[in-house]
């Protein structure tokens, strides 16, 4: 069954921290924008109503000052209109009196107007409004400046059939400027508030998620093999998770330890009787029993190899890729070199382990490393003429893993292994030279173990003609 390849999750969705932060910031932005819009609209409404009220008072004053002379022409005593803007041409405050009726004459605009209008006329929409009602329009005044206009029409008793329209207008620019000023101050204040709240949200998320970061660090230590379980104090909400996880780690370690012990016990239980059987078959007997003895000898050899192979595999499989494993190279190599120097004492070999950096560690079980290196070193010591050299170095990460790798080389100055039989040596149970002691599993087990760790064993020819066994393994950071 194949599905579509999983799409990469965006960063904000994959991280708890970014999710929380994104949600908080989005809510903040919406709330602040709404508040800003509402405040701006309230202020604008307030300013405009103030503006309109002031204009209405001007209209009332104008209405109160309206008189008519003997010929029925309207008169305004301009002395009584105190606002200086009325007098200054295009001063921003205007009034104008239109005659609307009698209809036969048509509308005669600007029968009388403020000095500030100079010779321009306020263009009013031709809407019929009832007498005494104040009507508000937005329009354009002299020089096309936007203005707010209030109009009121009235009739006077002395002039039946005649209707007059009184108009006051004021330029709205200042009011709009005030609103704009307020809006910019408001935007700046809300922006600052938003920034402070965002910082607070960031701090809150960081503090809130601190235990998770501690957990992340603890897990990293386990992954890198610096710890075998999660250490530290965690928040009450995640402590149960930590306890469970530590439980799983402990159980894993316990299972591996038990598997090893059982493999060891099984080895002991099987191999001693095998030894007895093989010794008994090796006793000189009469001619009639010789074929039987040979058969027993052959079969015990086969059983022994099977047992060795499967025990080695059982041991290896138990430990593969448990997290938190870290085995320093140098002490392990030193222990094995002590064994080699003792066991191969009469070969008078020089074993050089100067090429092991003291800081390098293997990300795996100590026993597995011993198994691999022990077999390689033992093999090298069996065949070397004078020198066995072991060296290690950091290596690029192995394919399929993201951790660092390490490369171990065991080099001897013996006869080496011909390229065409190297593959056969790695096959289980192969022994090129039956005269040498050993079960013939050594190199095959090393290869198998290395592969369980995602590494490999390569056999090459050393510069001096001996065997160079190169082991690639995961390194502990």
């Amino acid at each position, binding site marked *: 069954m194949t599905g579509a390849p999983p799409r990469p999750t965006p960063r904000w969705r994959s991280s708890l921290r970014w999710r929380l932060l994104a949600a908080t910031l989005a809510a903040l932005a919406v709330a602040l924008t709404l508040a800003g819009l509402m405040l701006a609209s309230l202020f604008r409404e307030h300013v405009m109503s103030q503006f309109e009220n002031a204009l209405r008072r001007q209209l009332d004053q104008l209405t109160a000052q309206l008189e008519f002379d003997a010929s029925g022409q309207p008169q305004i005593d301009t002395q009584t209109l105190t606002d200086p803007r009325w007098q200054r041409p295009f001063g921003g405050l205007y009034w104008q009196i239109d005659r609307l009726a009698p209809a036969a004459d048509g509308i005669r605009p600007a029968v009388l107007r403020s000095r500030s209008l100079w010779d321009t006329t306020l263009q009013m929409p031709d809407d019929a409004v009832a007498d005494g009602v104040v009507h508000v329009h937005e329009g354009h005044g002299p020089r096309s400046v936007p203005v707010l206009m209030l109009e009121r029409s009235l009739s006077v008793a002395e002039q039946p059939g005649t209707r007059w329209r009184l108009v006051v207008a004021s330029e709205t620019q200042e009011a709009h400027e005030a609103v704009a000023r307020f809006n910019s101050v408001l935007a700046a204040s809300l922006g600052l508030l938003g920034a402070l709240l965002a910082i607070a949200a960031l701090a809150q998320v960081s503090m809130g998620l601190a235990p998770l970061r501690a957990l992340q660090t603890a897990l990293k230590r386990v992954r890198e093999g610096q710890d075998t379980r999660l250490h530290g104090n965690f928040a009450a909400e995640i402590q149960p998770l930590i306890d469970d996880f530590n439980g799983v780690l402990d159980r894993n370690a316990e299972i591996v330890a038990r598997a090893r012990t059982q493999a060891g016990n099984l080895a002991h239980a099987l191999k001693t009787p095998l030894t007895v059987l093989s010794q008994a078959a090796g006793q000189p007997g009469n001619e009639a029993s010789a074929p039987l003895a040979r058969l027993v000898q052959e079969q015990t050899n086969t059983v022994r190899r099977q047992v060795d192979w499967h025990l080695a595999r059982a041991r290896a499989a138990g430990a593969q890729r448990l997290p938190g494993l870290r085995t320093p190279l140098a002490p392990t190599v030193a222990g094995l070199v*002590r*064994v080699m120097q003792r066991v191969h004492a009469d070969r008078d070999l020089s074993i050089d382990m100067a090429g092991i950096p003291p800081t390098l560690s293997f990300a795996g079980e100590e026993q597995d490393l011993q198994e691999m290196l022990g077999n390689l070193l033992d093999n090298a010591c069996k065949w070397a003429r004078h020198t066995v050299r072991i060296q290690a170095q950091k290596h690029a990460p192995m394919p399929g893993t993201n951790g660092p790798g390490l490369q171990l080389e065991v080099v001897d100055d013996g006869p080496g292994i011909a390229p065409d039989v190297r593959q056969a040596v790695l096959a289980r149970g192969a022994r090129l030279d039956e005269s040498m002691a050993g079960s013939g599993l050594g190199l095959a087990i090393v290869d198998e173990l290395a592969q369980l760790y995602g590494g490999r064993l390569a056999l090459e020819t050393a510069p001096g003609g001996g065997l160079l066994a190169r082991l690639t393994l995961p390194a502990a950071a």
Partner: protein
Amino acid sequence: MRLLLVEDEPTLRAQVGAALTDAGYAVDSADNGRDAHHLGHTETYDAVVLDLGLPVLDGLTVLRRWRDEGGTMPVLILTARDNWHEKVAGIDAGADDYLTKPFHMEELLARVRALIRRAHGQASPVLQCGALALDTRSGRVTVDGVAVTLTGHEYRVLDYLMHRPGQVISRTELTEHIYAQDHDRDSNTIEVFVARLRRKLPADCIETVRGMGYRLTTDSPLQPSMT
């Protein structure tokens, strides 16, 4: 040469014991760790074959105790647990070699011979002393290439002396190393064996150091004029 064999499986103990005796060693055996420790501590052995999986007291502990108490005899450990972890632990506990079960008897014998030889600084499996040669692998003794036939006890006395050329060996020491523990010992019989050896070998080969014991001479190579 006197060996201690420690193995709890009776059949295997009998087989190995028989093979070692056939190879000319005096063999004591123990079937548990406590007895093994006691024997190794109180008796003198030229080598020990020690199984690790033992009842009462495990082999590694026995070995550590011997070493702590100053025991220096070479020890070959037998182990069924064929892993390097255990080999490292064994060597670090003071073992000189290891052999994993199942093993071939010839290999065990070869390892024991090598251990004894190494303990006395002898590199070659053929011990040489003037015209006298003793091949530890085959048990063949020759003088100038001519084979000499020796009895078991004569061989053990010569073998012991040839591993320590030039050293004065007391009669008591010889007695301790050519007889197993349960054997009826009589140090006077040593004189008999030495006398017989002197008849079969060149005459001044084994020197008597008055009041102290015997010494295999190394400084006066045997001359053909002896004949």
